[in-house]
């Protein structure tokens, strides 16, 4: 085995739906995995060296939960690594295993069965510090309301520009056959929807969806021997700010900035705005897309709203953002959210994005945020060359 470049050589996914009462999580993973192996042209029992699986226990209402996936992945009796976090962290893990020369072919799995959790808000309310924060016992989105308020205050971006993000992404989702929440809407609809936690409205927030995503990664030698179109992982990065709500930065996504700095360094990208053709960034809430675009260096601080209202981030714009529909349009996939963003980048780079295919998709960026109440996230930069 030789250390060197790493490619995504196969992807498989199920349609993203608000509820999936017809299948168990295992069957969902099986479907995504079977499609990924077919796409890559490999047989898991013969070709897989290892697997990485990313799930959070709480999200599934079950303990030590991510040990449950090897059988539905065809990975029984293989080395399995479990990550209780977002899928991009799993992608990075697999990338490092191959890059180090330890493995040739590694599969990454993550999925959402969010509809199984009936009392999700209560689960999320368990995440903030149990001594200093949790006794205040509020709907956990109050944390997003405070962050949005501070972000808009510091940067001069507006609620209206946040609403434009929500409108754009749900509109984009209409061209994505597997997105759950595609919709034509107007800025007034978003601003006029029910207030959740000022200034955050109902339509500023993404709704959850279920779905499985599986990706096969391979070393350069192995990728070259497979029939499909390899998509190369050019750079990865990840970062966590202080976990304390009281101390972290509320106006700027520093975690995304530092994660991007690392990924750009590895990918040898000096001018992200020049070198990145399109991006799928975290949009769990509408304002997060603006905050993340600024942190990723894809525009100046305070200019993401203007860039949005000028149409730059539209599908026909100079820097299309969340062409897939993002979490606002596709549905929030819990720990599978980051890999949905990677998935869109892969499909675009392979020229397989159907009606929403971009013309000059050569280098794309995918970014994830771990979610409330934390300030951490990951970045992956992919290229077709």
């Amino acid at each position, binding site marked *: 085995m030789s250390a060197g470049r790493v490619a995504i050589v196969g992807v498989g996914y199920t349609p993203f739906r608000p509820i999936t009462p017809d299948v168990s999580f295992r069957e969902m993973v099986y479907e995504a995995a079977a499609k990924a192996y077919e796409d890559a042209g490999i047989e898991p029992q013969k070709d897989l060296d290892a697997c990485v699986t990313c799930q959070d226990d709480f999200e599934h209402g079950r303990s030590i939960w991510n040990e449950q996936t090897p059988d539905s992945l065809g990975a029984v009796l293989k080395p399995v690594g479990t990550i209780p976090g977002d899928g991009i962290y799993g992608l990075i893990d697999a990338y490092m295993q191959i890059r180090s020369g330890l493995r040739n072919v590694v599969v990454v799995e993550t999925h959402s069965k969010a*509809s199984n959790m009936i009392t999700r808000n209560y689960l999320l309310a368990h995440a903030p510090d149990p001594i200093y*924060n949790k*006794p*205040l016992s509020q709907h956990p989105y*109050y944390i997003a309301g*405070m962050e949005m308020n*501070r972000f808009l205050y510091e940067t001069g971006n507006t609620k209206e520009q946040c609403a434009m993000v929500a409108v754009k992404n749900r509109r984009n989702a209409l061209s994505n056959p597997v997105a759950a*929440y595609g919709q034509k809407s107007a800025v007034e609809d978003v601003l006029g929807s029910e207030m959740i936690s000022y200034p955050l409205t109902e339509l500023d927030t993404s709704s959850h969806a279920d779905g499985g995503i599986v990706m096969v990664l391979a070393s350069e030698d192995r990728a070259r021997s497979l029939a499909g179109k390899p998509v190369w992982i050019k750079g990865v990065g990840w970062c966590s700010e202080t976990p*304390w709500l009281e101390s972290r930065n509320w106006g700027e996504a520093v975690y995304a900035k530092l994660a991007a700095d690392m990924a750009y360094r590895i990918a040898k990208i000096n001018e992200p705005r020049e070198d990145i053709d399109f991006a799928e960034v975290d949009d769990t809430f509408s304002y997060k897309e603006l905050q993340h675009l600024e942190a990723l260096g894809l525009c100046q601080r305070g200019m993401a709203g203007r860039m949005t209202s000028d149409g730059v981030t539209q599908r026909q714009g100079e820097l299309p953002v969340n062409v897939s529909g993002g979490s606002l349009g596709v549905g929030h996939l819990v720990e599978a959210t980051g890999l949905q963003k990677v998935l869109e980048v892969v499909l675009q780079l392979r020229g397989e994005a159907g009606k929403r295919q971009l013309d000059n998709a050569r280098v794309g960026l995918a970014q994830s945020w771990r979610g409330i109440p934390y300030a951490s996230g990951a970045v992956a930069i992919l290229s077709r060359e």
Partner: protein
Amino acid sequence: MSAEKVTQLSQTKRMFGELSFGPQDVKLYGQYTYGIAGERFFREIKDNGRIMGTRCQKCQLVYLPPRIYCERCFAELKEWVEVEGKGRVHSYTAVHVDLDGNRLNEPILMAIVEFPGIYGGFVHKLGEIEPRDVRIGLKVEVVLKREEEREGSILDIEYFKPGMFD
């Protein structure tokens, strides 16, 4: 076409049979120890009505809530300093829904309160103010519960109210 879709299986129309995974209402019990820093911090509030932070001399940081280590230089922190309970609203929100998603009759005001020269502060409620009067930068001061009602928890702070100070 509507983005408002059924997101919970419980919202779908269906026949209910017995749906049970063993005994219902089984709760998980756990405990969260306050630790060295939390113990002292909450005792000071409860017994003395004082807010105390820990200080890192090297990094010139005062931690609130206090920690026994510095997250920058990783030194152990032993110096305790009092923090006057007068600060400013760093950010705020008005929460309109409860944990079940029901609309609240009156929104609840939540804020991050910062203090001059302090790394950190409090995430807490605002009181004695109308939502329309809150703004970022507003001067606020701590309102503690009466001493006999304090239990050594973050709820010993009732809320922060608009403050008159320089």
